[in-house]
Structure formats: structure tokens, C-alpha cells
């Protein structure tokens, strides 16, 4: 107990020394809480049904592919992965369900995308209005194929004529009625029942069947559903089947939350270990005194552990609270970027906050344990005022740990260079960069000393300030190393995060630029009828209809594009290296070389896969192509895929060298909201959207920046006596600041070299695995955009505490406590 009391008293007395660790832990706790909230939403998030709210039971397709995995120990495990599109069910099921026990009424529904001047909407038949239920506020139900009912929010009135885009083409409809209701997050349009089924384009199938039980009875649907791919959904599960995008967003949130949380935890341990080590270095004499008069090494470790625990509990509690706000902010950003649907609410529970508190305390305790090794080595003799020169050699446990970290980093780098899927390589990329940084921070004094020796020459050019700075760097190589570590972390993390995205984007763009033969790209949604009519027009040489979806081979997801094969060579060159796309039909596909490697297939082999809506297919590999990054892992035929996607409208690649953009636009003027992009703009727009990653990982960068401010501030504030001495012997204030600035710049130079080196190693491995070429793409301006703020940060974080220290009269400062 005596030790803990002492820890508390020390904390209260040396608030400044612990402020750094406190702020770092607070940020870590906030980040982990926010990530935990995303993760929990991913795991347990539920969406309340909107459209199906009026139906107690909804029967709809199974949205998962299932596989039973046999483990080596004889156990079996059932695994399920979500599919990308809605699974439709046979409409014949309606009759079977109607005859089931306890069923009063069933209502079948079709859903299809509709484009209106007011934006995207969902189209249904008026016969399924009862699922919500929707009722008419004015007008009447649609009777003819040319009539629609709009929802209360649309603002249209009965009698209005609307130009509407559906998968069947663009047409004009007359509003026959307006509903009393509107759904919170979707626009709804009702067509006449027969017209709705025609527009949905899936004869004999429905998207869902609402079941209304007899009063007080539980309907027995099991018998009716046996042997079908339909499932029964009740309660909030109805929301999951209504909003398929929420299911996919949940999977994304789990991986994003996990990766972000894990990275911030590792960064926290690294940074907090650094701040603790620095504060122990600064309290060397105090620790030596304790050792001399009273405390055993064990008690000292307990003291430092106690200080860390108290700091962590306080910081963790405050940080967890802040983290909840951060979680909401993150969600709002993701919603704005379209990564998370608005109707997926954040799950708020105490678990993430508690987990963050626990993780923070553990991180602090680990960090304290690591740095206490150094404190326990402080010799009691140092209390006698012996020159407390730090030993020049690295202690061997640290050397061994550093070499182990280096070895781990090398292994990770090698592993990374073999990973060719984004899901696998994203977390490994961050881990690789972090592991290199850990290695640098452990072995830090070695490169710091070498660099200090190197930098002595240029620094000597400036007679007074440079000379002093060079001397300080050489003798204070340990302090230099502790300042270099967070700066290096900042540069390495920022470069890795930014240039992973640019490398991928650039590689994809390069492939699209090389593969695109089309003169124009029409999009984003063109119905098949418009494509067909365009084909016959004079001047139009070839039109390729394109759809993007994803399929699963086993449980593994592959991005796929579907194309019409007629005239494909005129619009797109996938870089075919084996086989031919001429043979691409409903029972074949083309595979990128990368995916072929993973699947272990070549031309002529067959692959069993599950299409986006859960329909199984066995396809023969007709061709292998190189440009998988730009065009997707698999290329299927449009005819095969179109009936199995939610939205069968996609972009068109058009070869029409004789037509101007305006002329082509005129040809599709009848189709609403279609834009015509020329070749160059289409290529530029093909870069994958990286903003979600920037938002998430930007937090890690901000976190590292805070670590830089902490460490530099602590390191400079601690030198007030030394600065006072410089002032007393006749150094001007300006010269002192110049010395510090030169030292900070030297640290910055070392950190830039090391951090850039780490990023280059990681990025080269990443690029080798993902793009097949070891060259990462680093836009010089973006790189400068990393370095300039880092430099500004380093200089400010040095100058501010130095100015504060210099404000004190030197004679007083030097008499103060050490």
C-alpha cells in the first residue's frame, strides 16, 4: 500500500511528466471505444424493418452461402457468408404458404430499382402495399400499366405525369394516387401488379412474401419451406432481409473496426512505452535516491506500475466517454461517404467503453513494465551525484528484442508480398509498418548515433548554434532516439496509409487506361433497351453493357464484372493471355491471372460458384486475362448475370469514333439521368474510392501526431535547467532557440529517412502482392503534404515549451529542482 500512496503522491506532484502519457492513453481509449462501437454494430447491429413493418412474418430467400468445414480434429463447423444480391423465391410458394396452418393471408412482393427525377426509389406492385401498410391519401390504386402511386414525400399529385427509369427502359407514367405514408429512408413507387412483375423481369419469382397469421395463432410454415431456399423472418430479422446493404455494411464494420482498433492499440503501447521511458529517464536521480535509501527493484517496478495504472484508469475513463462521441462522428462520416446505410443505427452499450478501459490499462501496464526494466537498472550510486551519463551500449535484452522485431518485420514483409487480396493484405500492411517501427524504436539509439555523427558535418557550418546542436545530438543519442521514434511512426504510418491507396488506385487506373478501347462511357444506369437501340444507330460501332457484382467460390468472395460479348474487343481489352473471350457465354467465364492463381484453375477447367443472388452455377474457364485490378477478378457474360442482380442497369462502353459527345448524348436523351463521359474522364473516375480508409486511418495519423507533440514537448520542457545554463554563460535567447530548432530538424531528418524507408519497404511488398509490380505509386505532392505538416508539428512542439522555459529568469531556473 505504501508503494501505491507514493505513486499517487508522485503523480500529483509531477502532473506535467504524466500529461503526455495521459493524453496518449486518453486518445487510445477514445479510438478503441469508437472502434469497439463500430465492431459491436457490425456484430449485433439490427435494422428495424420499414417496408415490412406491417407483416408479422416475412418469407424471403436465404441471404447466405453455407459451407460445413471439416476440421482436422474431426470436428465440423458451419460457416455462412452473405451474398451480394437479393435472393428471390418462387412465386408458387405463395399458394403453399396460404394453405399452411394458422395463416390468414399472404402477400407476395416484387422489388426493383426505379430512377425518378427525385432520385433512386424502390418499385413494387400495389398488391403488396399491405406489407407496410401503405394506404391511399388521395386518388386511387393503379389500374393500367401506365399508372403509378407515389409516396407522401414525393410531392407529386394525382394526374401528374412522371418520366421514370426502370430496368425495362424509360417510360412516362401518370400518377393515379398518393399514399398517406412515406418510409423514413427510402422512396417508394407502386405500379399495377402485372406491370410491376414485368418491370422486375423475373417471371415466376418474388422477392418476399408477407404472412399474416390468424388472430392468436402461430403460423406453421416449416413444412411449406422445407426443401426451398426460402426462410422465415420475424421481428427485427425482417429489417435485415429488407436492407441487404445493412448486412454488407455490418461485415465491413467488423473488419474495419477490428483493424482500426488493433492498430490503435499497438500504436498506443508503442507511444506510451516511449513516454514512460522518457519520463523515467528524466526522473533518473529521483529513482536512484529511492533505490539508495529504501526501495527494492521490485518495489520500484510496483511504483512505476502503480503510476501507470492510476494514469491509465483516469485517462481510460475520460477517453471512453470521449470515444462514444467519436463513434457517433465516425458513423456520421461513413454514412456521408455511403459506406454505412443511414438506417443501420449504432449499437450503444457499455461493452466498448469497458473493453477500451481494460485495453488502455493493459497497454499502460505493459508499457510501464517494459520501461521499468530500465528504471530497475538505475544504480543507486547515481544518487550520490555521480555523472549520470547513460551507458553508451544498448542493453542486450533490448538488442535481442530489437533483432526479434526486425526478424518479425522481415517475415511480415515477405508474407505481405505474397498476399493478393485486399481483405488479407490491408491488416497485414498496417502490422508490417508497425513492426518495422517497433524494431526502429527498440534499436533506435543505434541509427540515431550513426545519424548524429553524419549530421555533425552539415551542422558545423553554423558556428555557434550548429556546433552546440551537434554536440547535444552526439551525447544525447538516447534522447534523440526517443524523439525520433514517434516522428518516424508518424511519417511511416501516414505514408503507408496514403500510398497504399494511391498505389492501388494508380494500378487500377493504369489497367483501365490500357484496357479501355471505348470512346465513351455512359452511366451510371442504362437499361438494356437503351443499349439495344443504340447499337443500331449510325456511327455507333460497338456497345458493351457492363454490370458489377460479386460471386462466391466456396465462401470466398470475388469481384466480378459481366459484359455483353458482341463487339467486346472494340470497347475493352482485358489483356487476354490464354483462351478467348469469343467463347464467353452463359456457361463460361474469364478469370484474371491473379484469381486463377488463387483458384488454381486454367483455361478449360470448370469452377462451381454462387452468383450474387445465391444461384449456383458451374462455369468453364474460357480465358485468362491480366487486367484484374481494373476490371475485376472474374468476367462473366451479361446474359448470365443480369437476371441475378438487384439492379440490371449498368454503364455502357461505347465505341463510336465518328460521333462527338454531344451527338452521342442526343442519342440517349430519352433516358433520364444518363451522363456521357469521354475516355479520359472515365479512366479518372475508375480509381477506387478510398475516402472511408482515409477517415478511419486518418485517426491513427492524428494519434501519432499527438504522440509527436507529447514527446517533443516533454523532452524540451525537461531541459529548462540546461537552457538556463546556456543563457547564463552568454548564449542569447535567439541562439538557444536556434540550437533547439537545429536539433529538432536533425531528429526530423532521421525520422523522415527511417519512416520513409519503412513505408517504402511495406509498400513495395504490398504492391508486389496486390499489383504484381514492386513499384508503389507515390505522388510527390502528397509526400510533401506528409512531410511539411510533420516538420511544422515538430518545430512547434519544440519551440513552444522552449519559449516557456526561457521566459523564466535563468538564475532561478538553474536553482530549481532538476
Amino acid at each position, binding site marked *: 500500500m505504501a508503494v501505491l*500512496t507514493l505513486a499517487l503522491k508522485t503523480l500529483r506532484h509531477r502532473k506535467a511528466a504524466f500529461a503526455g502519457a495521459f493524453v496518449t492513453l486518453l486518445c487510445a481509449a477514445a479510438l478503441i471505444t469508437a472502434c469497439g462501437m463500430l465492431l459491436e454494430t457490425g456484430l449485433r447491429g439490427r435494422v428495424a424493418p420499414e417496408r415490412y413493418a406491417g407483416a408479422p412474418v416475412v418469407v424471403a430467400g436465404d441471404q447466405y452461402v453455407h459451407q460445413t468445414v471439416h476440421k482436422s480434429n474431426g470436428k465440423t463447423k458451419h460457416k455462412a457468408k452473405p451474398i451480394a444480391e437479393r435472393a428471390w423465391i418462387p412465386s408458387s410458394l405463395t399458394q403453399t404458404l396460404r394453405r399452411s396452418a394458422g395463416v390468414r393471408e399472404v402477400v407476395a412482393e416484387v422489388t426493383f430499382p426505379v430512377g425518378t427525377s427525385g432520385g433512386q426509389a424502390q418499385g413494387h406492385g400495389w398488391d403488396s402495399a399491405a406489407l407496410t401498410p401503405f394506404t391511399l391519401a388521395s386518388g386511387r390504386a393503379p389500374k393500367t400499366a401506365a399508372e403509378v402511386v407515389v409516396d407522401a414525400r414525393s410531392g407529386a399529385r394525382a394526374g401528374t405525369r412522371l418520366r421514370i427509369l426502370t430496368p425495362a427502359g424509360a417510360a412516362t407514367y401518370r400518377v393515379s394516387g398518393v399514399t398517406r405514408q412515406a418510409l423514413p429512408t427510402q422512396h417508394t413507387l407502386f405500379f399495377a401488379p402485372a406491370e410491376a412483375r414485368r418491370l422486375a423481369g423475373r417471371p415466376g419469382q418474388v422477392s418476399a412474401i408477407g404472412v399474416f397469421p390468424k388472430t392468436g395463432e402461430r403460423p406453421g410454415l416449416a413444412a411449406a419451406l422445407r426443401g426451398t431456399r426460402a426462410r422465415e423472418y420475424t421481428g427485427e430479422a425482417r429489417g435485415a432481409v429488407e436492407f441487404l446493404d445493412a448486412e454488407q455494411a455490418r461485415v465491413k464494420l467488423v473488419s474495419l473496426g477490428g483493424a482500426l482498433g488493433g492498430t490503435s492499440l499497438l500504436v498506443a503501447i508503442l507511444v506510451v512505452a516511449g513516454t514512460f521511458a522518457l519520463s523515467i529517464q528524466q526522473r533518473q536521480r529521483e529513482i536512484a535516491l529511492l533505490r*539508495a535509501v529504501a526501495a527494492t527493484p521490485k518495489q520500484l517496478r510496483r511504483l512505476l506500475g502503480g503510476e501507470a495504472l492510476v494514469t491509465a484508469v483516469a485517462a481510460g475513463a475520460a477517453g471512453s466517454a470521449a470515444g462514444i462521441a467519436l463513434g457517433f462522428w465516425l458513423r456520421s462520416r461513413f454514412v456521408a461517404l455511403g459506406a454505412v446505410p443511414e438506417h443501420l443505427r449504432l449499437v450503444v452499450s457499455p461493452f466498448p467503453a469497458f473493453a477500451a478501459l481494460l485495453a488502455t490499462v493493459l497497454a499502460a501496464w505493459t508499457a510501464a513494465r517494459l520501461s521499468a526494466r530500465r528504471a530497475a537498472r538505475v544504480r543507486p550510486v547515481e544518487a*550520490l551525484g555521480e555523472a549520470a551519463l547513460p551507458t553508451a551500449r544498448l542493453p542486450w535484452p533490448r538488442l535481442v528484442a530489437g533483432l526479434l522485431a526486425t526478424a518479425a518485420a522481415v517475415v511480415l514483409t515477405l508474407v505481405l508480398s505474397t498476399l493478393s487480396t485486399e481483405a488479407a493484405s490491408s491488416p497485414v500492411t498496417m502490422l508490417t509498418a508497425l513492426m518495422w517501427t517497433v524494431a526502429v524504436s527498440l534499436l533506435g539509439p543505434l541509427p540515431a548515433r550513426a545519424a548524429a555523427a553524419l549530421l555533425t558535418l552539415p551542422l558545423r557550418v553554423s558556428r555557434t548554434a550548429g556546433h552546440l546542436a551537434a554536440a547535444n545530438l552526439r551525447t544525447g543519442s538516447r534522447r534523440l532516439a526517443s524523439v525520433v521514434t514517434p516522428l518516424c511512426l508518424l511519417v511511416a504510418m501516414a505514408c503507408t496509409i496514403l500510398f497504399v491507396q494511391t498505389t492501388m488506385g494508380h494500378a487500377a487506373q493504369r489497367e483501365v487506361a490500357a484496357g479501355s478501347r471505348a470512346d465513351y462511357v455512359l452511366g451510371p444506369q442504362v437499361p438494356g433497351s437503351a443499349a439495344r437501340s443504340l447499337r443500331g444507330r449510325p456511327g455507333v460501332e460497338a456497345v458493351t453493357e457492363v454490370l458489377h457484382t460479386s460471386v462466391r467460390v466456396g465462401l470466398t468472395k470475388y469481384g466480378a464484372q459481366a459484359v455483353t460479348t458482341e463487339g467486346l474487343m472494340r470497347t475493352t481489352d482485358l489483356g487476354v493471355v490464354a483462351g478467348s473471350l469469343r467463347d464467353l457465354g452463359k456457361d463460361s467465364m474469364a478469370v484474371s491471372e491473379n484469381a486463377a492463381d488463387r483458384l488454381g484453375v486454367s483455361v478449360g477447367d470448370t469452377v462451381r460458384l454462387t452468383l450474387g443472388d445465391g444461384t449456383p452455377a458451374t462455369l468453364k474457364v474460357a480465358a485468362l486475362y491480366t487486367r484484374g485490378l481494373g476490371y475485376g477478378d472474374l468476367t462473366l457474360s451479361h446474359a448470365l448475370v443480369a437476371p441475378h442482380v438487384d439492379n440490371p442497369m449498368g454503364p455502357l462502353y461505347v465505341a463510336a469514333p465518328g460521333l462527338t459527345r454531344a451527338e452521342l448524348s442526343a442519342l440517349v436523351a430519352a433516358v433520364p439521368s444518363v451522363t456521357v463521359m469521354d475516355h479520359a474522364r472515365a479512366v479518372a473516375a475508375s480509381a477506387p474510392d478510398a475516402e472511408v480508409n482515409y477517415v478511419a486511418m486518418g485517426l491513427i495519423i492524428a494519434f501519432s501526431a499527438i504522440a509527436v507533440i507529447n514527446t517533443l514537448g516533454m523532452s524540451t520542457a525537461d531541459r529548462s535547467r540546461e537552457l538556463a545554463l546556456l543563457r547564463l554563460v552568454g548564449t542569447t535567447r535567439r541562439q538557444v532557440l536556434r540550437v533547439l530548432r537545429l536539433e529538432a530538424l536533425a531528429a526530423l531528418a532521421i525520422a523522415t529517412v527511417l519512416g520513409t524507408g519503412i513505408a517504402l519497404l511495406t509498400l513495395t511488398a504490398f504492391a508486389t502482392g496486390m499489383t504484381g509490380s514492386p513499384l508503389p505509386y507515390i505522388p510527390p505532392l502528397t509526400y510533401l503534404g506528409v512531410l511539411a505538416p510533420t516538420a511544422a508539428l515538430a518545430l512547434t512542439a519544440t519551440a513552444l515549451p522552449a519559449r516557456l522555459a526561457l521566459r523564466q529568469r535563468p538564475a532561478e531556473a538553474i536553482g530549481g529542482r532538476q
Partner: protein
Amino acid sequence: MADTVRLDAVSKVYGKGQGAVAALREVSVSIPRGSFTAVMGPSGSGKSTFLQCAAGLDTPTSGTVRLGDTDLTGMNETKLTRLRRQRVGFVFQAFNLMPALTALENITLPLRLAGARPDKAWLGEIVRRVGLEGRTNRRPAQLSGGQQQRVALARALATRPEVIFGDEPTGALDTMTARDVLALLRETVDDMGQTVVMVTHDPVAASYADTVLFLADGRIVDQMGGPTSDKIAERMTRLGAWK
């Protein structure tokens, strides 16, 4: 009189091979109980190393150090720490006190870390003796240099140690304050039967001792009983010339 501290053929060598420096060479000495011993010598004579080895702050390269009946050689750091906080007191030249603790907390620090309950009456007695009554709730930064050394002395006395080691305890004080602190040390020897060993370079400080040991080049070269500052100064001058 029994010996409190006994060094037998203690040598201390720093470094290895060609760069090795011998700070102590086969030093043998006995410090009797209830005596006040000063250790003097020019810079680099090994007086700091002597103190560190005798107090269990450092382990000698060869030879044995005994505190009472206990052999210090071969003890590990934890055992040495326990021994120091229970049986040895320290007064250093400067930075003697934990800045976060009040004077009283500093005084009782070794007791608390040893898990012992301070004896109230004894504490009151030593606080009165060192003249800190009414100031025990202040922090080191609020005390003068002399008062800080008094707190350090009180801390050293609190555990009723067998011996108190001082490393230039008056080195950072002005003449008047130094005289007070030395008188206080003398009192603990005379009135309380305390054993004190003090390293100093100041002949006036050394003149408060019963015996002065002169170190030069890692050896004890002379010993003086009933010293006066003049005699010590003269001996030191010769030591410097002789060296």
C-alpha cells in the same frame, strides 16, 4: 568497542583489460561503534568508491565488507536494499529528498517501504533534535538547503540504523548552515551513540570527526585521531604534494 563496519582487502576495479582503473586497492579498515569518522582525499583518490562499497551501494571487485555480523559481499540487489533501508542511513550532498513528499513523509519513507509502522515517540524525538518542529508538512521546495539536510538526517535516523553514511553532506551549504548540520551530526554520535562515516574534502567539516582517514590513489595512506582543521589542512597539502 565492537566494529560496526569492517572492510577487508577491498578492491574495486572499473572497466576491463587495458582500460581498467583501480579505484580502491586492498583497503582494510574498521569503523568502531559510536565513532565519527571522516574520509578525506584529493579528487580521484577513491573516497566516493570507498563510501559506496562500505554502504552496500556498490559491490567490490574483491575483498569483504561486513556490517556488524553480516557479510555484504555476494548479496543481491534486493537483499542489499533491505539491508540499506533497515540498518544504514544516508545523507547525500544534494537531491536528498523526494520532491513529491512532505518532510515528514520523506523521513518515514524507508520505514513505510519496509512495511514498518513509524514509532511516534521516536519520530517526535528526532524531529525535535534536528530542529524541524512545525515544518514537517512542508515540501522540499519550501525548505532551505540547511533544512533539507536536516530532513535527510532525520530520515537517516528514523530507522535507528547501525551506521549513517554522509557524502559531502555540507558540500552544498554555506559555512554557517554547514556548521549547524555538522554539530547535529556530532550530537547524534555523542548523545545517541550513533556511528557516522562522512566523506568530505573540507578540513573544517572533517575536524568534527573523531578520526580522519586519508585516501590517496585508492589506498589509506594515513589516519589521524583528535583532528583539528589546521592539522588536517596541513596533512592534505602534504598529500597533494606527495602525490
